Every structure is written in C-alpha cells, then in structure tokens.
C-alpha cells in the first residue's frame, strides 16, 4: 500500500513541478518578448504643439516656410511615435498662447511644445504648465527652465559666408570682390542680425579684406533689383558674392543680375531651402541636379518643414523620463544642386 500510495505521490509532485516550470518558461518568454518590443508595449502619449502661427502665407523665421509647413512636418513625424498630437495656433498673440496652454492643461496633455515668440507669454505658459505637472519643450524661443530646440542663425549665416568665400577664392582669384548682404535686415526679431553677422564672419574668415555692403529690402522683394542694380553699377569691375537672407531674395537677386546683363559677375547663396528654390523630378527649380551651372550656388537649410522629426524624439525622451539637453540646435547645411535630391528626395515619379 505504501509503495502504491507512494508511487503516485512523486508523479503528482512532478506534474506540479512541470506546471511550475512551464509557467516559469511562459513568464520568461512573455517578459523576453515584451523587452524585445518596447514600442508596441509603450503607452500612447498626448502631446500638444502650439504653433507660432498658422495664418496662410505668413512666413516664419525669415525663411519661406509657413506655419502650415511646420504643422505638417509634426503630423508626419508623429507617425513614428506612440503620440497623439493636439495642434494649437498661437497666432503670434500672447493672449491666445495663454488660452491654448489653459486648454491643454484642461485636456491633461502629457507634454506641451511651445512655439511662440513673446517672452512674457512664454514665462506665464511655462509657469502654468509646471504647476500642472506638464513638461514643456520650447521651439526657437525660450520658455524658462524648459529644454529648447532652436535654429542657429549665426551658424547658418557662417555656412553661407563660407560657401561664397570659397567660391570667390576658387573662381575669381585675383579679381576685385564685393560682399553683398541683401534681404530683410531689420525685422524686430534678432535672428536677422545674427544671420547677417554669421555671413560676415564666414566671408571674412577666408577673405578678411573683403568690402561688404548691406542692402535692406525691408521685406519687399521687389526692391532687390533696384538696390542691387545700384551697387553693381557703382562696382562695375567687381564680382559680387551675394548672401541673400532668404530664398525668395536669392531668386530675385539672380533675376536682377540677369536683368542688368551681369549674370557672370555674381554668385548667390540663400537661406531656408523652401519649395520656392528646390523641387522634384518634374518641377525644375533653381536647386536641381540638372542646373549645376546656376549662379545660385545653394541655400542653407533651415528645415522648418522637418522640425517634427527633430523635436518629437526629444519629446519622447522627456516623456520616458530621460534627460535631454537644455539646448538642441538645427543641423544647418548647405544644399546645392549636388545634394538637393539626397536631402530632399523627390517623389514625383513612379
């Protein structure tokens, strides 16, 4: 009896052991799979993005990009992340910025991205969000104590100046050179002066004796021809290294040179790389692999249309509790006919 009764006992024990073992294996497997697929397991976050302005046609940061471009860039970039975006339009209005912030607090968003130029409103927004326990990420204009993602006008200007100086040295060695800075040089924001300073630094680094003239269009591109024409006439024997503050001005400068029969006497670099200067396979634009001989050497990319791809990864890191740098800067780059299709691959073909 004992033996008989004893014999099943170990079997029962083994069954329990096996069950425990299988349970353990299943648990480990589940944990392993969970560890392998963190994104799939990650919760979805609600992130608010309060844009500077979404008014149609209004361009931002002295470039040709609009608020719509920034908005769409965020929407596209969000596809890669477990993020539900809530969009606000700050309308360049401090009161609206505060109202947007209050609405987002009411919605209990997980993170707030503030793109707003008014320092007072940004301070108030930062304070309110902190009180509500909502982390803030600032774009281009600081919010106290919040990490900032920002363009670097001075660095961008230096890239443009460097490119022009390099061209002048290589192509017009020994000839009289003139540095020309043209565009909206006197807007309220300090970005323009920093960009101009960068251009000057870039040019002077290689051409320290270069004479420079600044032509302020006051935002009126129609004045480019008149202003540039006067300078070209006054410096009839000089080759002009022209830094245009934005792409529209760059194109207007080229047209002005064409109009005065001085196309061979100028080289131009713009700022921005918006759609006015680069296109696809079918809509030939100034920066195009088939237009390598253009006197528009290139334009310095500001990537406002891709802010989402830079800013949302920072937001996700913050939401995961990681530390992010207090200042992250746009990686400006000179875009030319040689790399425009690499940087902005067109998709207008099948």
């Amino acid at each position, binding site marked *: 009896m004992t033996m008989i009764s004893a014999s099943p006992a170990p079997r029962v024990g083994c069954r329990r052991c096996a069950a425990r073992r299988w349970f353990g294996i299943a648990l480990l497997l589940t944990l392993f799979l969970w560890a392998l697929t963190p994104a*799939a397991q990650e919760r979805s976050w609600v992130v608010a993005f309060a844009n500077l302005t979404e008014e149609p046609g209004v361009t931002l940061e002295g470039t040709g990009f609009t608020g719509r471009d920034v908005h769409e860039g965020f*929407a*596209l970039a969000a*596809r*890669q992340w477990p993020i539900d975006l809530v969009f606000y339009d700050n309308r360049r209005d401090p009161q609206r910025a505060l109202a947007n912030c209050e609405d987002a607090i009411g919605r209990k968003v997980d993170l707030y991205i503030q793109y707003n130029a008014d320092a007072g409103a940004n301070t108030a927004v930062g304070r309110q969000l902190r009180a509500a326990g909502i982390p803030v990420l600032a774009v281009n204009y600081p919010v106290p104590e919040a990490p900032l993602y920002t363009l670097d006008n001075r660095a961008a200007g230096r890239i443009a100046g460097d490119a022009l100086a390099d061209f002048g040295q290589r192509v017009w060695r020994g000839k009289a050179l003139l540095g020309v800075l043209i565009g909206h040089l006197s807007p309220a924001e300090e970005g323009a002066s920093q960009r101009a300073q960068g251009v000057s630094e870039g040019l002077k680094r290689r051409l320290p004796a270069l004479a420079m003239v600044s032509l302020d269009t006051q935002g009126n591109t129609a004045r480019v021809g008149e202003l540039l024409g006067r300078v070209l006439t006054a410096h009839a024997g000089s080759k002009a290294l022209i830094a245009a503050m934005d792409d529209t001005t760059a194109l207007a400068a080229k047209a002005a040179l064409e109009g005065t029969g001085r196309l061979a006497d100028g080289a131009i670099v713009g700022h921005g790389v918006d759609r006015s200067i680069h296109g*696809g*396979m*079918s*809509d030939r634009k100034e920066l195009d692999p088939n237009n390598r001989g253009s006197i528009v050497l290139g334009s310095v990319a500001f990537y406002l249309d*891709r802010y989402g*791809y830079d800013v949302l990864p920072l937001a996700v890191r913050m939401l995961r509790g990681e530390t992010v740098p207090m200042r992250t800067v746009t990686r400006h780059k000179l875009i030319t006919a040689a790399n425009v*299709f*690499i*940087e*902005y*691959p*067109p*998709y*207008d*073909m*099948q």
Partner: protein
Amino acid sequence: MKRLAIVAAVLIVLVAGTFAFAQTDCTKVVPPSPWGPTDQTGATNRVTPAITKAAGAEIKEGKVIPMSYPLVDGVPLFGTRFTKTILTATTLAPGAALGENQLTYMEDTWLSQSHVGTHLDGLGHIGRKDCYFNQIAMGKFINQNNMTKLGLEHIKTFATRGVLVDMVKVFQAAGKFKGNAACKKPCLDKGTVITAADIQAGLKMYNASLREGDILIIHTGWGDLFEQFPAQNATYNGGEPGIGKDAANWLVGQKIVAVGNDTWGVEVIPGENPKEAFIVHNILITDNGIHIIENVRTDLMAAEAAATQRSTFFFSMTVPKAVGLTGNFVGIEGIR
C-alpha cells in the same frame, strides 16, 4: 586636323567609357539572390507547379473580378510621363478595302512609357547607386534602348494565389481611420503608414494567412481618386497611403512574389523618413526580387471579400516578354 579630331574622339570615348564603367562594389550594396549568382528572375522563382496547382483550388465558381484600371487619356501620370495611342493604319478610305471580300483592317501605335496605369515594376526598375537585384552592376548592362539584364523576359509566371487585405476596414475596426475628403468612398489618407501588424490584422479579418509564393493585394481606397480622373489627379499623385519599412521587411519574410495596391507607388508617401527615397522599393525589388504592382483596382475584390468573407483568389496576370524592359502595364483578374 582630321587625325587630331579622330584622336580627340577616341580619347573622349575612352574617358566617357571610364566614367560609364566606374561602378560600385555591388556585393557591399545589395544582397545576393537566394536563387544563385546568375539569377535574374527573383521572386517568381517561387511560383512552382505545386504553387500554381494549389492556387487553382481558389477557383470555385469561375467568377472573374477585374483588377486593372482602363488605360486611357487623362489617368493620373507624373510629370512628363505619357501614354498615347495613334490609329496608324486604316483601310476604311474609299477603294482601300482588300480583295473581293472587301477586307479592311486597322492597327495602332502605342506610344507609352511602361510604368503607366496598372503596371508591374520589374527587377531592373529600382536600384541602389548602380547596383540592382542580385548585385548586378547595371551600368554595364544598359544601352540606349533597354537593359541587357533583369528585363521582363526573365520573369516566370504570376499564376499563383492572391490574398487581399482591406486596410480601410482594418483601420476602421482599430478606430484609427483617417480618410481624405476627396475620396467618394472611404480611403486611407496620404501619409498613412500600413504596418506589419495592420497587414496581419487584415489577414485575420478574413481568417487568411500568407504562404510562400502568394501575391498580396492591399486595398487602401486611394484608387477611388484614380477612378475620378482627371479631376483628382493632383491629389492622387500628391502622396498616398501605403506600406512602411516594417511591413516591407515582414513581407520579405513571408516569401511572397509580389505586393500590389491601389496607389501609384505601393509605399507610404510622404515616407517615414524624409531623407529616404522610395525605400520600400529598395527593400522589396532591389534587395529581395519581390515585384511591386501599382494602380491595382482593388475595390471590386474588397467588396467580394467582404460579401463572402473570403479574401483569397487565383491571381491571373500575364506580363509581355518585352526584352530588356523595366516594367509594363498589365491586365489582372482575380478568379474565384
């Protein structure tokens, strides 16, 4: 002077030749074909007699469902692409009929680019640098008229099983559907990324699964804009919903022969990474020899699948043995 000109011409040819043959080491850029170093066929190698026979079991009622759009003037085309027919011979003129039986005839010339309408992307269509499927350095195999490797003539048959997934229904069921107002019937909006999980959900919806040698057809609803030509051509071409990299890589693992859908590029546009160009084409065609079929008419088969809860069919598509071509417009029928 004449001698100088000849020497100059020879030099130009030699220099140009040097550039033309300057090539990438394709073994570092593209993986080898699993069907061997001489393979130019790619994924249609998978369509064996057994695969075709098994696919034949899908024909239960003999019902034929069109899956191509008519190729006519005005359908969405990009940029300078064109497709045009010209009636080039007619005997309808008085006195031109032949013989006592008064035979008359007509013929036409089709001036068209190959990647128009419902069409197949061949293996020579997409590369990385100068490297194409199976590490072929394409710079050495092109002439003014065509490719001398990877042309359509190397493709085997597409007589296999088709499996449809209805992404409109998948996204609606998941509560993440975002449509486009220009579509008269529900369609996913441009930029909508279809993931591997979405495709799996689509298969599960009709209790289907993929097997080696299948052709996957994805209904996004975007084809509704194609049908509205020419009114919605700009919207149709302005982007599209489609598969992303995750889905493409998963499909490679499923060992399918081709993937098609009702958009002009099959993959999501704008793409997931703005600095990548048609990366799904690279993954499927260049790296794995899997064909892409674009502008497939999917709505009828999607309706059929919804009505019968069966999403599989016999995939009937013939591709002309057009030597050296990178692709061609095709006629597709799903037979059930």
